[in-house]
């Protein structure tokens, strides 16, 4: 029963987010601030993780290639497929659920605890639009982060594979181009938009409707990560079923 109520409350929140808009000039500033906090602020960790995980994928593939009949280009192929199909969109989104999601929940939750949200409401401002809408818009730039993660992941794979002595640059490049389906990129970016919406709204819901004090803000941040991750995994399955099967 509680879950049903929570689901209803989430969708009602989404409806309110898109009702009675904040003044345009203020909203524009808020969106730029959110892009800075949520997108630009995440580039470092995403770049670091993508580069090294790409390298690890190439190494794992190379180390497990025992059969001399399998061409070395498979290292580039496996790196590309793993990164474009799952690692960049899904794995990075789980990481973002932790980094960005916790930030969103704790910042909105702290505003709830310190009555800042009440202050907005008393002033006649639609606090959900003021707080959540700029986050949704900012997260629509999230596919750029994933594009960067794809590029750096493949670069990491290339450097680990080639400079680690497991394959040649030519073989790796052949593998990268082998059986390339452009639709896989479309699929990856489509699901990235779905994940972006989840990352912006689920933690906002957790923070906005939390009750209590500082301890509860911490609990809400943990719940936010758990539920955002669960929804990313579930929606990943649904989108994959719809687009690839």
């Amino acid at each position, binding site marked *: 029963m509680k879950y049903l109520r929570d689901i209803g409350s989430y969708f009602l929140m989404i409806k309110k987010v898109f009702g009675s808009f904040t003044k345009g000039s*203020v909203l524009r500033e808020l969106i730029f601030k959110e892009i800075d906090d949520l997108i630009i602020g995440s580039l470092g960790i995403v770049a670091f993780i993508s580069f090294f995980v790409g390298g690890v994928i190439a190494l794992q593939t190379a180390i497990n290639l025992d059969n001399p009949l399998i061409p070395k280009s498979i290292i580039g192929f496996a790196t590309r497929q793993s990164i474009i199909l799952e690692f960049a969109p899904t794995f990075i989104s789980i990481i973002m659920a932790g980094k960005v999601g916790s930030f969103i929940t704790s910042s909105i939750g702290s505003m709830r605890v310190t009555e800042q949200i009440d202050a907005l409401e008393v002033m006649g401002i639609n606090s959900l639009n003021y707080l959540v809408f700029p986050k949704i818009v900012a997260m629509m730039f999230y596919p750029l982060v994933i594009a960067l993660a794809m590029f750096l992941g493949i670069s990491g794979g290339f450097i680990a594979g080639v400079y680690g002595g497991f394959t040649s640059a030519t073989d790796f490049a052949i593998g990268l181009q082998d059986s390339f389906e452009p639709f896989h990129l479309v699929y990856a970016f489509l699901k990235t938009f779905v994940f972006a919406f989840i990352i912006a709204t689920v933690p906002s819901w957790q923070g906005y409707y939390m009750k209590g004090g500082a301890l509860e803000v911490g609990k809400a941040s943990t719940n936010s990560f758990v539920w955002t991750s669960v929804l990313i995994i579930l929606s990943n399955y649904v989108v994959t079923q719809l687009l690839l099967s």
Partner: protein
Amino acid sequence: MDECTDHTLKLCSNSTLIKLMIVVKDVKKRFGEEEILKGISTTFEKGKTNLIIGQSGSGKSVLLKCLLGLFTPEEGRIYYEDKAIQDMNDDQQRELREEIGMLFQGGALFDSMTIEENVMFPLRMFTNQSKSERMERVYNVLERVNLEDSGKKYPAEISGGMQKRVSIARAIVNKPKYLFCDEPNSGLDPKTATVIDNLIQEITHEFNITTVVVTHDMNSVMEIGEQINFLKNGLLVWKGTNDEIFRTDNKDVTDFVYSSDLFKKIRKVQLES
């Protein structure tokens, strides 16, 4: 009300009509099975500091949130001038709230903004003033609360008393018709609390606004209580001024007022004299 011609006019004993800005009529509010407000009827007058006092759990804060429209009462009506808040659509409620200034218990300043930006916030949201006009207005009100030198600081960099004064500045910057204060003195030392009390009263008279203060601080009652509403268990059990509260025989009020040794001694001196 002695006699009503409409919801906002009171016929006084000397036959002059007083404009009542907020009228509360038989308001009931419950949470689940528990009835918090059990039919409150009262009025809040323009140009006066109207206090809502009572013990913790008496329903003061719930009444305040009903007045602000943050809670919807199950029964009863709340009139702002001659319009019931329950009859207002979303746009009308939003317009009403633009006329409300609120001082929260903890200040509720936006911690990501400087003091200057906090005070400017309502002007940015609701007016089309140029930046220089907004700045001028901001520093006028900051000067009014003696904080003109702190505009560039962040809320975390100033004391609790200063935060309360910034919150008052933010509440009055857009020239509100109504000022609501929730426990304005909580967490403040007696001297700072008196400064805040006096500031609230001065602003009320200076701008001729309707001020409603929720408190259980007896010093505030003595300092600024021009109209006092005493709540107990969700009922309005007494109403009067700060002079009358020390003379009343109402047992609920005397139990509350003389609960501290200091006020017991004051009572003793009063009775002896």
